[in-house]
């Protein structure tokens, strides 16, 4: 409930600020097109400000997940590092999993279990 109150408070504050701006008569009522344009800017304003927040949040440390981890997680080269396979390339990671599959097949096939694509 606490987070809902916070989010609602934020939205109400932003709305009140915007209504306040409209009521200050800085823009005369005769300038209809200008008012419409300003409202369009507001419609764009919310997503446009949320996007940078998302990016910052994505790169922010979460429970010890550092900025460098975030970056390596997003880069193709750093996938294996982010995947907890420090020093292991994607190729090596794939090979290791392939080894799991081969091992399972060697154990299960002689025992009559259908494994993988067999």
């Amino acid at each position, binding site marked *: 409930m606490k987070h809902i109150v916070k989010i609602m408070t934020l939205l109400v504050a932003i709305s009140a600020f915007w209504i306040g701006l409209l009521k200050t008569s800085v823009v005369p009522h005769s300038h209809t097109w200008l008012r419409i344009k300003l409202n369009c800017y507001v419609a764009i304003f919310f997503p446009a400000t949320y996007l940078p927040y998302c990016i910052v949040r994505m790169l922010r440390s979460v429970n010890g997940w550092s900025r460098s981890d975030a970056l390596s997680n997003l880069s193709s080269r750093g996938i294996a590092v*982010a995947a907890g396979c420090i020093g292991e390339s994607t190729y090596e990671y794939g090979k290791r999993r392939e080894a*799991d599959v081969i091992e399972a097949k060697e154990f299960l096939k002689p025992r009559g*279990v*259908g494994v993988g694509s067999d």
Partner: protein
Amino acid sequence: MGERNKYSIIVPTYNERLNIALLVYLVFKHLRDVDFEIIIVDDGSPDGTQEVVKQLQQVYGEDRILLRARPKKLGLGTAYCHGLKHASGNFVVIMDADLSHHPKYLPSFIKKQMETDASIVTGTRYVKGGGVHGWTLMRKLTSRGANVLAQTLLWPGVSDLTGSFRLYRKSVLEDIISSCFSKGYVFQMEMIVRASRKGYHIEEVPITFVDRVYGSSKLGGSEIVEYLKGLAYLLVTT
């Protein structure tokens, strides 16, 4: 490790003939000194998944591998409920059958629970040591962005909301699952958010989410819409 506890691993399946044997083999490989059972809830797979499970029962024993089939696809939430009815362990692990959740992490889940006495241990991609493997950059950005959006709106107190590799105290899972109504991707998120709201002790362990070995997974526009609808629902109801 885990001498007094018993772990019931619930694995919902649908057309997982190619993966299920590998998964079972790896679970037995990585949980050598642990008392556990694997409950496979198959929703009438036409590809012969149940035949493979029966073969596995011959190898490992029907007391270790339980096949609890259902006639048709009835949804993930009800699959967990169905599996839970047959679970004899005091802890329940839920994981995917497609090997995107590697069984090698199971010991770290158990260790973390024993160290912290947590009610829930959840696998997370978003702590140091965790990550994803085999995803395109676009999919990573989508997933991370969805998670950030959920963090912003729901404040759940856990770093990975949409993951489904978790260990629950059985009584806790029974309590949470009875209060969840969502389906699909949102179901996992609802479970952890409701658990957080109820004040259960939740711990995290880093996991690497790996794209499935056999078959393909999808993330399209309809999944994203469902996710956003689920977020709005959870924002209002939790």
